[in-house]
């Protein structure tokens, strides 16, 4: 393997890795405010991409993507208002089952609204054959889009949570729901907002990755598994670590693909998930004895 190939592999690993990281951040946003793992997280990406594909037939690409993101954001809010809000103090088992149900419903709805066909958005710049040369490696410009958008999302979220009033209120809710409520923060609205936010960034991620990986109604579940693997790898709730973990998983997948059959690519993340759950459920970067103090 020459250096150009290595760069090629690394870049494609980083590309998928950054998408996994964004799915993981979606998990984390909801987990932090509610303690719920939203099994429907992967569906948000697919809904966003599907919606954008359909809208490109009537409006230009940027508008289509913008609309798709807005609609998915609203959908995320609706999921919370309709399904999650009613079961405030439910057992973990009940919440798991409800979000699984939601993911099935969204997936089946997509199957009936669109169909089983594989679709994709057009490349944002250039076509599927245009390449940019980076240190001897040929990469698609869409890869740069994915990396750029991911970076923007992460930076935007960091600024949002650190400097805006709403972002701070959400962090307060994550820290101590009761105390936040006593300070006059509307915690219900914050939970709704967290669902909207993670649906929205999911939709953006779904759109930028669509030209590369293409989109099909049932691709949400595998994405969710990978996103969850990354979230656990980084330590549930820790979004900065999730980025590192996403890149690790992405690179690992590409490495495995270069060595073994592509058919087993899916198995890589599951094996990583099982290993991490068994050996370090608090994540690669966390201190074990501290996180064992958490409720679960």
């Amino acid at each position, binding site marked *: 393997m020459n250096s150009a190939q290595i760069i090629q592999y690394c870049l494609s690993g980083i590309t998928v890795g950054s998408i996994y990281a964004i799915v993981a951040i979606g998990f984390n946003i909801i987990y932090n405010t509610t303690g719920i793992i939203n099994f429907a997280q992967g569906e948000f990406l697919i809904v966003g991409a599907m919606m954008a594909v359909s809208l490109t037939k009537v409006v230009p690409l940027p508008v289509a993507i913008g609309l798709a993101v807005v609609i998915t954001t609203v959908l995320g809010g609706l999921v919370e208002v309709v399904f999650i809000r009613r079961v405030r103090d439910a057992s973990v088992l009940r919440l798991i089952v409800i979000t699984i149900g939601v993911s099935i419903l969204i997936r089946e709805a997509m199957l009936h609204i669109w169909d089983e066909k594989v679709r994709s958005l057009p490349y944002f710049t250039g076509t599927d054959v245009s390449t940019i040369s980076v240190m001897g490696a040929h990469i698609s410009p869409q890869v740069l889009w994915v990396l750029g958008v991911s970076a923007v999302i992460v930076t935007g979220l960091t600024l949002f949570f650190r400097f805006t009033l709403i972002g701070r209120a959400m962090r307060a809710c994550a820290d101590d729901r009761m105390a936040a409520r006593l300070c006059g923060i509307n915690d219900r609205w914050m939970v709704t907002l967290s669902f909207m936010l993670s649906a929205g960034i999911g939709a953006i991620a779904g759109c930028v990755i669509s030209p590369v990986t293409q989109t099909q109604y049932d691709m949400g579940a595998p994405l969710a598994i990978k996103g969850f693997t990354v979230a656990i790898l980084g330590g549930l709730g820790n979004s900065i670590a999730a980025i590192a973990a996403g890149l690790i998983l992405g690179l690992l997948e590409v490495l495995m693909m270069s060595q073994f059959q592509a058919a087993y690519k899916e198995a890589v993340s599951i094996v990583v998930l099982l290993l991490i759950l068994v050996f370090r459920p608090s994540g690669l970067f966390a*201190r074990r*004895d*501290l996180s064992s*103090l958490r409720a679960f």
Partner: protein
Amino acid sequence: MDEAFLETKKLHRFFGGLHAVNDVSFAVRRDTITALIGPNGAGKTTLFNLIAGTIPPHGGEVHFGGRPITGWKPHAIASRGIARTFQTTKLFLQMTVLENVMVGRHPRTRSGFVAGMLNLPWTWREHAEIEAKAMAILEDLGLSQYAGQTAANLPFGRQRVVEFARALATEPTLLLLDEPAAGLNIYETQELSELILRIRDRGVTCLVVEHDMSLVMNISDDVVVLDQGQKIAEGPPRTIQRHPDVIRIYLGENHVEDPQS
């Protein structure tokens, strides 16, 4: 002094950077009531959890009946004869009071998965024994009229006693009581202290974490004082009451009298 029945040797436990239990060595004599006191956050409950096996120690040893039980799992420790109650009662709320106590018979009975699935005749006899023993304990503690009630429906004070009954059903030789008087009124506390004394007189050694000083001073034979994870005093109640360090942590510097006076 008698041979120690329960003994901890240089126990340590950390939570992150917090040294929750720091080099604690103490002993409990057989057939006595020993009280473990100290201000909030002194490490009393952590020490309890170390003895009961809920969390492993980061250093040191626990000996029970002359043999080490350090690092054993709670179920193994329960089978050896240490039973416990919890600071906030942990009953099986959807089960009846009788069933709660029947679970307590678990370490003294043996029918397993296969026998249970096949409903073998010898398990019937065991079941009858479990029920009879559990019922006898309930009667002894004056709870028999609640036997068929769901535990969640009992008033708080009764739930405490059910937890006692459940712990006694394991036939312990050492009973760990974590703040048994918390949330009880003075009449209930009075009843409770009589109950603890009765249990001790039947040969069950008791180790009690308690905030209620009158209860501690009335019933205990020995008192161990913890502060910030360390043992600062140990002895009979009379001595402890006059111990300057104890007075200081409970009442503040100004109340320490000149030991000569």
